[in-house]
């Protein structure tokens, strides 16, 4: 396989996996391939999709962010409080809250040179604790405008609920950022060759910080969606989301070693995870088995990344294996 073909194949894994899984579940439970189920899933994928797209930016810059689930919970809870105070648009406060968390991560990783795992672990704990603190030890914060929020989250308009459309727009925006804006391009440059970034005149730490800021902002938006769907701010939600988001991003072809990403493929990766969860559910399998399946999917994503990487080094002259000479 040439590197070029490999590059494309990588982004086709998720769509292919969706088709395969949908086919299997269609056989297993006839209801799965119905229009109703399709529409219902189309409304469900967005929280994970937004988290995965954010995660994609961090992975593309050769890092990752394990605090996204906690950040979504905190920003969703604060969003609910703001919405109760000033009306439903206040929910959007979640985005700047997420952005602030992302800025802290980005500063720690880019400027203070923390390893991504340590920095985001630290913020994960602190943010989780903050979410409990602002909510009186984990009490859900009911949304006063819950009915309107539910309408926005569940009543389909032209196939998708309004918030689904909004999330789709945000994913589209992520695509624009990655493909057409300098920020996105620089993140890819940093992930592709960190040493070279400074040589061509960019400031590496600012790029790294922007990647985590984007990640945080998308986690904040996911938190707002979470609150709207549940009709309440859920300060203890989000555990496990960071894992699913990493899995979705990697299945969506984001290279763990950085430098290569495609937003639509990541969306497909998130969809795949949702298809597996819903499909198992409709097939009458216990939700806990579905959790095992998601774990297997995470491991599979790692194997896929490693497998494609091996192919890449074996069949191209891209980078020599460790411990040898050029």
């Amino acid at each position, binding site marked *: 396989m040439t590197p070029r073909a490999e590059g494309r194949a990588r982004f086709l894994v998720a769509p292919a996996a969706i088709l395969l899984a949908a086919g299997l579940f269609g056989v297993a439970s006839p209801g799965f391939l119905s229009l109703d189920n399709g529409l219902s899933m189309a409304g469900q994928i967005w929280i994970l999709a937004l988290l995965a797209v954010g995660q994609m930016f961090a992975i593309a810059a050769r890092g*990752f962010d*394990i605090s996204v689930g906690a950040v979504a919970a905190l920003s969703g809870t604060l969003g609910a409080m703001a919405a109760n105070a000033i009306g439903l648009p206040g929910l959007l406060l979640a985005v700047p809250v997420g952005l602030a968390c992302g800025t802290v991560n980005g500063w*720690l990783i880019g400027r*203070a040179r*923390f*390893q991504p*795992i*340590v*920095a985001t*672990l*630290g*913020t*994960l*704990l*602190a*943010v*989780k*604790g*903050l*979410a*409990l*603190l602002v909510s*009186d*030890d*984990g009490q859900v914060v009911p949304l006063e405008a819950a009915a309107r929020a539910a309408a926005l989250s569940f009543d389909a308009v032209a196939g998708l609920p309004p918030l689904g459309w909004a999330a789709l727009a945000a994913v589209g925006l992520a695509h624009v950022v990655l493909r057409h804006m300098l920020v996105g391009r620089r993140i890819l440059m940093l992930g592709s060759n960190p040493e070279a970034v400074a040589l061509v005149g960019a400031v590496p730490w600012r790029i790294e910080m922007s990647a985590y800021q984007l990640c945080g902002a998308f986690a904040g938006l996911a938190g707002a969606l979470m609150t709207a769907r549940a009709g309440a701010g859920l300060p203890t939600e989000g*555990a*496990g989301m*960071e*894992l699913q988001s*990493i*899995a979705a991003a*990697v299945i969506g072809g984001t290279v*763990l070693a950085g430098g290569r990403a495609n937003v639509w493929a990541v969306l497909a990766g998130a969809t795949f995870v949702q298809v597996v969860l819903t499909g198992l559910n409709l097939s009458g399998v*216990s*939700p*806990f*088995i*579905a*959790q*095992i*399946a*998601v*774990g*297997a999917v*995470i*491991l599979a*994503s*790692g*194997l896929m*990344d*490693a497998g494609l990487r091996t192919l890449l080094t074996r069949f191209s002259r891209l980078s020599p294996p*460790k*411990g040898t000479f050029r």
Partner: protein
Amino acid sequence: MMAKRLPGTSRPLRLSRPPAVALVCLGLFLLCCAFVPRFATFGNIENVLRVASILCVVACGQAVVILLGGIEFSFGASAALASVVTVMALPVLGPVGGLATGGASVIAIGAVNGFLVGRLALPPVIVTLGTLMMASGAAAWLVGGLPIDAPPSAAFSWPARGRVLGVPVPILAALLACAALHLMLAHGRIGRLWYHVGANPVAARLAGLDVTRITTLGYAVAGAFCAVGAIILTSRVASGQPALAPNLPFETIAACAIGGLPLSGGRGRVSQVVFGVLTVAMLNNAVVLINLPVAWQLVLLGLAVLAAVGLQKDWAVLARLARRTDR
């Protein structure tokens, strides 16, 4: 002894110099004694040690993985799985057999992690997060998501509530775990190999070491430490809990990081782990005693991790300066 000192050595190196975290730990202890009500009572101290002991056993396992340059997130989930497996196996195998089966399942998960990281070179984060999901899913599936109670039995409650010569068993287990890890790291061949692989895996391969086997074994041994912790936890809650200790990996990683183990691997001593664990346990205890919301435990833990890692660089600089003035 001639063999130990080369000519020109001014004086023997003080190898047992206490780690920097010991000072932090001592300072925190004195602060707590002075300002936290009911902290400096015998009952509370024993309570702190009891809580710290489980954390300590598991942190010993986490330390092995971190020494190898990896990280282990699956501990909490595999402890939960162990508790469920134990309670389910109780009627068939009895208390001892049940606890052994539960422990074995944790070791098995550790070995799987080790194989995937060591043999297939997958990133430790992805691997252990994946097995975390699978183990916690399996634990919940086995009991349908709800905890199941264990029939009361003296043997079953011994690991958590028993005493040997007046010392609570968990504390004894922690002491034994620390001693075992110390022996492995300071005198055992396998510990030495972990240091080598963690410090520079490429150089380890070129020196002729079997990096794959060493890594796999390391994760399995880490699983064994976690298994001991899981047995004590299961015995303490006297039930199979599918959501037993979700924060266990975070707390153990935090303890190691606060103790000063660099997450890049290759460095670390048991004493650092012990003081890191004590710091975490005292922080948690103080938060409860001052009547702060329990959430403060998480916030303080997160901040402590970031502060410890941030300070580590400064400590390294100080240590180097100190060495230079030694000469």
